[in-house]
């Protein structure tokens, strides 16, 4: 084991909103107050109507699994100590597509619930759990 390795914690400044949500037990995505678009990954303008009137709102997290991989290699020591790592690609009911860690039992085609959890570096990461 690599003693000091932590999960990669480097993010854009906007990610703190997701981490704050995770701390309060919520999955928060940006909603455009002009056109209603829910977007992910975070941006400073709406990718549909270009408004900057965006609010971080909780979403339920219901999603469909589009694809999945089992990783046997990683560039980060933290993950190398934990291989294989299962990652899924999901589409939230609100529209956005996200990479998430997959709990056991999550498979392609499933309905799943996505949540934001704090990792060992105290940064939010998304997880999919069987519904």
């Amino acid at each position, binding site marked *: 084991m690599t003693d000091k390795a932590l999960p990669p914690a480097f993010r*854009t400044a906007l990610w703190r909103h997701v981490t704050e949500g995770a701390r309060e037990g919520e999955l928060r995505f940006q909603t455009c107050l002009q056109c209603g678009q829910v977007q992910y990954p975070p941006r400073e303008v709406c990718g549909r109507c270009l408004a900057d009137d965006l609010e971080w709102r909780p979403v339920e997290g219901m999603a469909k699994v589009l694809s999945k991989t089992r*990783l046997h290699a*990683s560039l980060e020591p*933290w993950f190398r100590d934990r291989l294989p790592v299962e*990652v899924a690609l999901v589409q939230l009911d609100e529209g956005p597509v996200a990479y998430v860690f997959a709990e056991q039992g999550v498979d392609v085609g499933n309905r799943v619930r996505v949540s934001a959890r704090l990792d060992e570096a105290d940064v939010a990461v*998304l997880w999919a759990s069987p519904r």
Partner: protein
Amino acid sequence: MARSMESFEGVALTTPVTIGYERTSSHSAHWFAGKALARLIEAAGIVKADVDGLAMSSFTLQPDTAVAMTAYLGLSPRWLEHVPMGGASGVVTLRRAARAIQAGDAEIVACIAADTNQPGAFKDLVADFSSFSRDAVYPYGAAGPNAVFAMITRCYMDQFGITREDFGRLCVAQRQNALANPHALLRKPMTLDDYLKARPVAEPLHLLDCVMPCAGAEAFLVMSTDRAKSLGLPHATVKSVVERHNAFPDDPVPTRGGWAMERERLYEQAGLGPKDMDFVETYDDYPVIALMQLEDLGFCKKGEGAAFLRETDLTVGGDLPHNTCGGQLSAGQAGAAGGYLGLVEAIRQLTGQAAGVAVDGARFGLVSGYGMVIYDRCLCTGAAILGRGEA
């Protein structure tokens, strides 16, 4: 109906150059660019001052861009372009440079893609490749593009009934093409069994689905056909070029790319169709992407890739010579030079300078590009049809 594109008549592509490849290098990208420029000048029989246009592509020039390279290489060009489009860099650069020649903005443009590969540098590149990746891809296993293309591959296999054996056929054919290419890093014959037994990397991707990062450069010159003739340079001509970025953004998983949007325009401008192509060079960062290009560019129907791969001999001398120098899957991926590889190989094939096996009597070839995995797909796509120039 939009105005149709002006033709690319009168533009010549000459002097295909490859520097390297090496698995890793202690040299900078600048060194590879310098070697490439020197080779271009020597091969064309010109002097450095004749080069009045420069286009550069690289992932490892930081903190420099094409701007710094003018001072580094001692050039004073009147036309300068930096094309940071990874695997689409070659086709996009060709399009820009061809227009510069036609407009008289430059007379000889040196197009260079150069990258080094220093130990540990690949991780730094991947970890901060884009804002989206920093927040929403890299933290999920830090697997780089392998994770992204594993998702696409799995989806393709599920949706279209394609198997690992099918992708294996494409990879084995490319390795066959690579055997005679002195630049290819991987020149050991490969069997379907080797492919199937390779270790898993990001399932369903295994080791032989993934390109090997390396150092190297690819380069060519763009000038008028008149200039190429007066210099006595064999050259390729440009029949058509298209590009499209962030195509089909609402597809949750990208099973098609910008080629599907631009295919009609591409063939219409060239006055040619898929059946007229004597060879095809696709961007092969992963076999699924090569197949996607073959489908989207009309060599087979979408979803019929499995049957196509079972029935079609993709080796040089076969039904449809594809990635005739072995592609990146055999040559290695020298960063942005990987986005030039197919184009430089096409120029070789059309000017009788094949480094490996020549496609007998090739008159027309298609090159396509795919670059920059910003989130869940590459955003830049392009394609070009080239022809054999008259001496």
